[in-house]
């Protein structure tokens, strides 16, 4: 259960940061480029999967426990629901932040442009919520599958 060799551990740690960064990029730019919360969350979960395979479940559980992952998953889902409910002033899921000038509130000019990161209102926030949910839920699934494969835990 102590994971793979020192070489694999070191290389996986080297790869860990770029994969995580790429995942965060996909989540954050969901409203501008292909991708979004689900896809980015999956990329983040692959980084955690790499860590799990290289270091073993014991080390993984020491850093990210089952209960912790489950709680984070709930928080992601709840914040998605809360963002949808906050629009209730007009309608459920209404985008109350778009074009408001504040957070993610810039209005987008008509015509071709490179994409403005600080736009689209609640959509990027919802992408973050989905990203948190998918990343934690998928790592939880991977952890449980890993444990049942090794015949330990429960």
């Amino acid at each position, binding site marked *: 259960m102590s994971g793979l060799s020192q070489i694999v551990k070191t290389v996986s740690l080297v790869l860990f940061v770029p994969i995580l960064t790429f995942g965060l990029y996909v989540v954050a730019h969901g409203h501008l480029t292909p991708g979004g919360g689900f896809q980015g969350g999956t990329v983040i979960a692959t980084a955690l999967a790499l860590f799990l395979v290289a270091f073993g479940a014991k080390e993984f559980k020491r850093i990210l426990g089952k*209960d912790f992952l*489950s*709680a984070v*998953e*709930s*928080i992601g*889902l*709840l914040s998605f*629901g*809360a963002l*949808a*409910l906050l*629009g*209730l002033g*007009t*309608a*459920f*899921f*209404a*985008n109350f932040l778009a074009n408001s000038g504040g957070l993610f509130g810039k209005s987008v000019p008509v015509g071709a442009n490179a994409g403005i990161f600080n736009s689209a209102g609640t959509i990027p926030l919802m992408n973050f919520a989905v990203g948190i949910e998918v990343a934690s839920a998928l790592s939880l699934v991977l952890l449980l599958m890993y444990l049942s494969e090794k015949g330990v835990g429960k």
Partner: protein
Amino acid sequence: MINEIALHSPALAIAIPLVFAFLLPLLKKWKKLAALMALIGFGAAETMAVLVFKSVLTEGIKVYVMGASSIGQTTPPFMPVPVRIILEIDAFSALMGLAGATIALLAAIYSIKFIKESHVKYYSLLLLMLAGLLGFVFTGDLFNLFVFFEVLSISSIGLIAFWLKRSEAVEAGFKYLTISAVASLFVLFAIGLLYGEHGILNIATISRDMLFYGFAFTDIIALGLLVCAFAMKCGTAPMHFWVPDAYGEAPAAVTAVLAIASLSSVYALLRIAFTVFGPLPHTEIIAYAVIIMGAISLFVGATMSLVQKDLKRLIAYAGVSQTGFILVAFGVGLVAINNVPLQAFGLRAMQGGLFHLINHAFYEALLFLVAGAIIYRAGTKDLNELGGLARQMPLTAVFFLIGAISIAGLPPSNGFASKILIYESIYFFSPLLAVIALISSVIVVVPMVKAFCSAFLGPEIKKFKSVKEVPGSMILAMLVLSIIVIFFGLFPGIMLESIVNPAVNALLNQAAYVGGVL
């Protein structure tokens, strides 16, 4: 404030159970608080369903556009077609939603004592199931129909296999998983075909397209796939094999909700046949298919129920036969709508079918809750082992008798009221069909008598001497269901006038459904 809530009630009805379902895992450490929150969630969802039902009955079709700048703005500015997520609720969907929320609330109350372990996981899944059910019947968009269909199926699978230590439960869950996956793929493929043909997913817009331009060949394929998928999921013979397993192995309170979840597939079938495709001549072939499936279910369900030894499987098979009643009635209605001399009987058949659908949901739930009460106290559902329980559990025995009388269609129960409507109307369509229905209904009496006698009557058995009546929360859930069943049976005229007829008219009035959005 109250007006605001009533305005947003369709969205809140789906959002509240979802949010509460996600909230519960955070309260894992505080079990009592989690159960309390779950009950609050079910209660709030029920309130929303009542508000929706009330406003639909008084004001007609209710449309809710998610994310729009006002909730009635179905088409965005400068766009000719609706593209947003739209909930469209007519009297039929509102009635289904209300029945679903009521049964789920009662099941949750029943579960307080009935479920002894993993409260959080259980209530979370049950809330998700309610959210899926309400979304499924409220949506006005084909793709959302598919999404909520999946939510409903997946949470049901988790609950059917809830007692993971029983290998039979896992097997039943796997069977349901397979049938759900196949049905979902059928639905998705059919939606893809419809989208390719019409370029939009809104039910009302597709319906208008078909009214104006008629059917294309791909539409007919889509219709066939959808009817197959929903018939599979509502448990009609010959696709009924999952019903006894899933109903038999799921915890009893879940089975009660599962029964209305299956009936919501009947709702989707009717929505597709009547609203999307409309009563055009092409749909007649579907009507005959539905009638034949219904007639087979009637007979197969009733006869298979006869030979069961397991109480819950016996009730499940009797339920298959009742689904047959509903399908036969609506099939006859679908044929008769285009056939002028039969039209009056067609309408009557549909009233009977819809009334039976609601009645079936309630008495099936009652019977399963009673079966759960027996399992809770006696620890077995094998009719060969049970006996003499009426001495220790008199109230449960009375509740079972009420449910059994209803499912067998004896007066003065609600089952009698709806079945007599069905008999007298389908007789004019085909006397043979009426005979099959009558015989099946008579056959269903036998397993019910058998179950009552072998579980509640007979000499006292030593093993069950110390058995007590079930706790108050379980009695309360069964009592409310019994009152509903008896009330529907004693005042069928009022029920027909006030809730059934609006629903039937809503189903038949395709133009109003289309007009709600466009």
